[in-house]
């Protein structure tokens, strides 16, 4: 018999007989009932507490803020997608400037070295945010592959304020994740970090050392 059959047989023919499965009450991980402001406040508080930077902007003016951000951070080479409106708008706004736009929508094998060694930042859209933990959720696509949020030293993520939900559980349920998972789904909560050297926090150990979230609001906040 194969290892598989042996293992399954042992598990099925359990000495102490069949087990009963207890019910699970998920109430404790949902039902927060926060208002939009509370959600935003929590999201910002938590992601900032782990070294994430939040910049508030609007749907109309975000690319202006992006240009200023790139300049402030000295970002000269930016990897980004093409089709997603976030990438398309960014490309349009940056077309004339000095920032070199690097196409992320091609096989990584073609530009691995470039991505690892000379790309300053990666720009991605996000699918939403999670207020309870200050997390972003990303489902990388052919347009915005997995590594542009990981390999360059700075990750700029664009988040629409109205896509922030209360908890991870709520996100999974509301968007029917179980019905069809992408090859890779991600929660990102801050830049890469480690505390492996005597509990001292250090950022950017393997992934980005900076995570900047551009939170887009429908209109100017009063």
């Amino acid at each position: 018999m194969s290892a598989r059959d042996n293992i399954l047989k042992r598990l099925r023919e359990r000495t102490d007989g069949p087990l009963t499965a207890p019910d699970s009450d998920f109430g404790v991980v949902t039902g927060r009932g926060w208002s939009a402001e509370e959600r935003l406040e929590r999201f910002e508080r938590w992601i900032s507490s782990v070294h994430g930077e939040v910049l508030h902007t609007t749907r109309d003016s975000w690319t202006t803020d992006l240009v200023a951000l790139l300049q402030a951070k000295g970002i000269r080479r930016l990897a980004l997608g093409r089709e997603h409106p976030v990438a398309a708008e960014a490309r349009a706004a940056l077309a004339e400037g000095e920032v070199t736009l690097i196409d992320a929508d091609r096989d990584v094998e073609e530009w691995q070295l470039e991505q690892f060694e000379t790309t300053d930042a990666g720009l991605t859209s996000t699918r939403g945010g999670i207020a309870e933990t200050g997390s972003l959720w990303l489902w990388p696509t052919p347009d915005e592959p997995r590594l542009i949020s990981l390999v360059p030293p700075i990750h700029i993520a664009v988040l629409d304020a109205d896509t922030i939900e209360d908890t991870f559980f709520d996100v999974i349920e509301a968007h029917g994740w179980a019905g069809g998972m992408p090859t890779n789904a991600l929660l990102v909560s801050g830049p890469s970090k480690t505390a492996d050297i005597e509990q001292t926090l250090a950022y950017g150990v393997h992934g980005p050392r900076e995570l900047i979230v551009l939170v887009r609001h429908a209109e100017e906040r009063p």
Partner: protein
Amino acid sequence: MTVETYTPRAFHRQAHDALGNPQIRSNFRRAMDGLMTKRRDVFSDWDLETLRELGANIRLRALARLPDLLEQLEANCEANGIRVHWAEDGEEACRIIRELCESHGAKSVIKGKSMVSEEMHLNAHLEAAGIEALESDLGEYLVQLNEQTPSHIIMPAIHLNTDEISDIMHDKTGTDRTRDVDYMTAAARAQLRERFMNADVGVSGVNFAVAETGTLCLVENEGNGRMTTTVPPVHIAVTGIEKVVEHLRDVPPLYALLTRSATGQHVTTYFNMISGPRKAGEHDGPREVHLVLVDSGRSRIYQDDELLDTLRCIRCGACMNHCPVYTRVGGHSYGTTYPGPIGSILMPHMLGLEETKDLPTASSLCGACGEVCPVKIPIPDLLVRLRREAVGEGRGNVHGAGVKRTKKEVAAWKTWQWLATHPSAWRGSLTMAGKLRALTPSKLGPWTQYRTAPKLAKRSLHALVKSHRREGEGES
């Protein structure tokens, strides 16, 4: 720095040595104190008991349906394009991984953190086959550079302080000697980036494997896990068969418990959910993903209603952070892959009680481990159960049961039992013992190592009370 080999058989000597090492004691003490405070604070606004209850129930439900869920996981993984392999033990799992590497002509493997791979000594196995296996988690990398094993399941290099790490990096990689943690981290980043790019295969562990969707979940802060599972052309995930959960919705509560219990974090930087290799049209990610399911004694633990609770563990390490023994002797003293309370209840099953008979006694039974365990494993009860197994009083279904049973001890207890149930013999022997008290030995094995040997009183309490009463009666 001397490199030592630790074994569970030598627990007492190793613990003794660690206790005499002020460096080890202060490294652990400081780290564990900090972790305990952080854990307490991070749960302060949670209904922790309800969350633990949910966590325990999710794990119990998964175990109740374990064989079905494993089959469902396999079917859904295969449907997603993940190849699933089964291994009876670590040796078989190592062979499967080596053969997969060889079939791709792999010369170098980059590894994310995986306790199962430690358990099966994967690195040594691959190296013997001429395949280099490099750890990419910073703590694991440092420990590997130092030719050691991890001393904690979450923080592998917790036994080392900054100066020691600086020395290791200087000696092995030529970096400057420094106390600047950012400098050392940046150096490790540069050293490993190249290795990620050039690795032929990435090997990772799994925190939760979701049967419903065929998804492998990985929890991490550094991004090395994402690199390992994305950059090399082949990704091999390896996990114990107990890591499966039924539904995707089971994941958020366990993830919430895991990060908070382990390091007092609300959430980790990355939560990576992998449901297949790179698809047509996608531009990165491995072209092949494999999942190796390892038994290694787990299905044996599964047979027994009581021992089964051990399999609920989500490897958060909270039990070791709170254990008064672990915090004093450190992880290496245990001489096993999993140290601390969880190691003391898990390792006897994996290695047998002959090897590990002292581990269940490495506890004051203060109950802290059971109190903090996010999935409510009754660790103290299991420690007692294994102590009983070791002296031949349990069900005898743990490997090496009865190894600590000695004829002398059995005879002594039998005699005691007989005396205690025969009043006149009991009284007679007490009087006799009182008379012979001068002969009481002054050395009673380990008992008198730090204590003075007890001496019997001339007269028993019973006799004293009796005569006292008589005197009292005479007075009235």
